[in-house]
């Protein structure tokens, strides 16, 4: 069963177990209503999140990816989110050159006590993805667009776009 067609978009979350997954739990315990699109993958630490997981998820057709870890200085493993911050920021800036809207990926910090903040983050991010709409896919680029770009490329030689 896919996402609810026309209502939901495919949003994947990577959450560290100690803070953000707990924050999402806290939001649940507090019955803070949230959009239903997000599917959460639990990992021990934001430092475990290889940016390539996110790239893979987006290239394979997800409409959005949200990563959340412990606030800087509060990492359960002391340093994981510091590494994550650098790597995720690099990825965030890399995505647009691939043709992926950078708004489809975001990372943030939510602690286990911040149920309301989690609700806010999920709601805002889901809204952001809905504003962007379903993600265009590499394997389904419109023929006209492909022809236009291919034309430009052949003008300038393969290595240069136009």
């Amino acid at each position, binding site marked *: 069963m896919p996402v609810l067609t026309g209502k939901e978009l495919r949003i994947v979350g990577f959450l560290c177990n100690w803070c953000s997954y707990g924050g999402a739990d806290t939001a649940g*315990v507090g019955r803070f209503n949230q959009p*239903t699109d997000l599917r959460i993958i639990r990992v021990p630490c934001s430092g475990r999140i290889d940016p390539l997981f996110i790239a893979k998820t987006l290239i*394979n057709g997800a409409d959005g990816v949200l990563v959340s870890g412990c606030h800087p200085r509060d990492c359960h493993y002391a340093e994981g989110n510091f590494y994550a911050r650098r790597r995720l920021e690099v990825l965030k800036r890399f995505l647009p050159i691939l043709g992926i809207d950078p708004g489809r990926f975001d990372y943030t910090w939510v*602690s286990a*006590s911040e149920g309301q903040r989690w609700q806010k983050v999920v709601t805002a991010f889901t809204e952001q993805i809905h504003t962007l709409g379903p993600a265009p896919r590499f394997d389904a680029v419109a023929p006209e667009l492909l022809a236009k770009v291919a034309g430009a490329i052949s003008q300038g030689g393969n290595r240069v776009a136009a």
Partner: protein
Amino acid sequence: MRIGVFVCHCGSNIEGTVDTAAVAKATLEFPEVVYATDTMYACSEPGQDGIIQAIKEKNLTGVVVASCTPRMHEPTFRKAVERAGLNRFMFEMANIREHVSWIGKNREANTNKSLDLVRIAVEKLRRDAPLIPSKFSVNKRVMIIGGGVAGIQAALDCADGGLQVVLVERESTIGGKMAKLDKTFPTVDCSSCILGPKMVDVAQHPNITLHAYSEVDSIGGYVGNFQVKVKKKATYVDWELCTGCGACIEKCPSKKNPDAFNEKIGPCTSINIPFPQAIPKKAYIDATTCRQFVKGKCGVCAKVCPTGAIRYDMTDEIVTEDVGAIVAATGYDLFDIKKIPEYGSGTYPDVITGLQYERLLSASGPTGGHIKRPSDGKEPKNIVFIQCVGSRDKSLDRPYCSGFCCMYTAKQTILTKDHIPDSQSYVFYMDIRSPGKMYDEFTRRAMEEYGARYIRGRVAMVYPKGDKLMVRGADTLAGTQVEIEADLVVLAAGAEAAKGAPQLAEKLRISYDKYGFFMESHPKLKPVETNTAGVYLAGSCQGPKDIPQSVGQGSAAAAKVLALFSKDMLESDPQISRVDIKRCVGCGKCIMTCPFKAIKEVEFRGQKKAEVIETVCQGCGICTSTCPQGAIQLSHFTDNQILAEVNALCQS
């Protein structure tokens, strides 16, 4: 693999908005799922029995339970599958309560999402491998950080239970805030009479090592084997020699320093013992005021000390304590009342905190137990108490209730009447919070028997008029503005996290909330545990607490430590990283980034390779996402497992 899926109703908690039967039925389409059912309460005894029975009858080799958060019941179900003969790691959970049924009411969307979450759990489970924990020894010593009543209780209970205890206290004496109180509610017991004997017990207990005037510098290691560096701050007095005779205090020429123990409403000497019942009863020098340090000459204390204990050249010293568990009991600090300038604290000496008022009431305080107002030493007749100063106030980022102020204010009005029979107390309050045995009766007594006038409303401003303080507030029940000409204004300053609490939390690798209070593992079921194994909490460091609650938590934390130490060997969590030696190129990037120094370089057939130290690895997985060739994989969270989850979501 033969996978069984159990979808929990959790009564109506899940079933109310998720069609659990439909989820169970649909999972039968997933690869390797051979059995699926919905169940009323998976965690209940019949629920667990059902899982065990299914494992046996259907020859299941792996189990998925879709229910609440794994942070709640993962250990429960792991034990259950283990009872059925499976390795406990051949189990996955899908969180369809906190992450689904409780956050939305759309049954179709929730059912659909639940199925997706089971799908990824199945995909992960298909790539799970049995993991066997290894055992390691436990150092059965415990460190208690903080010597207030919670820490004292934890220390005594652990020591009585036969453990070696290291108690670390930031001040020169233990006792904490309770030692400063005059009486306690609702029994009006003398605070130092009930705390004093416990403090003496600490000093005399053969199992307790006390580091007073000391702070935790750094913490390394892990449950069972922590190494804590403790900074023993220089007291400039050799405590081996000091007998606490007080000759130095008598002769010290620097007498006008604000006395921290008396909340700065009385003076003290630069060399000082905070109060007569101090434990340890040893003098220390405040180098910021001592003339020997400030002016470079004096030396009076050194001259008069009968044992020659004064050491002006003393420096801070670091000692390392190896312990197996740590209890944080660092208490609270008071809200800084200067942050509310309209109450005039800091400007008008007769606007004081409740704790300062305790010192005025206390026989060991600066006024010898006579209530004299700070400005002119006069006995006040009209005393106004203002509640919720730095509590329940969003504008000051202190939205929480400090819990105990209502009660101590009621106590203070009673004591005021006892001290000054012709006095009149006024209490501005918003709500009276008195849920405790004999608590509400106590506040009623303050009004009914002692005539305290309670006014429901806040105070807008306090300003001087002659030698009085005009207190302008509201009586919201009467719907009017009220003014009181007060002689003394006592502010019930709220509790906030102790100074340095976030820094200590970072050293302990535990979480804290936005106010700096430490996070417990579960708000209901694990109130004294943290998410870091071997680290426990007691008292107000977790949130404001009164004395009985703090004492109860001290004992509770001690019980947790005793239970932990009841085994000689602990099992390490086998969810750790492992190196595929064939793939490792020995670049050492994992070694460079591991926060725990849990990876070392080894030689293998003449080539450099990485190797994980099993008991040190904490399972964060930074190494796995750092290694470009994926040679080091975090068990139970391998690349393949996360990729399978990603693929399942992208393909579905």
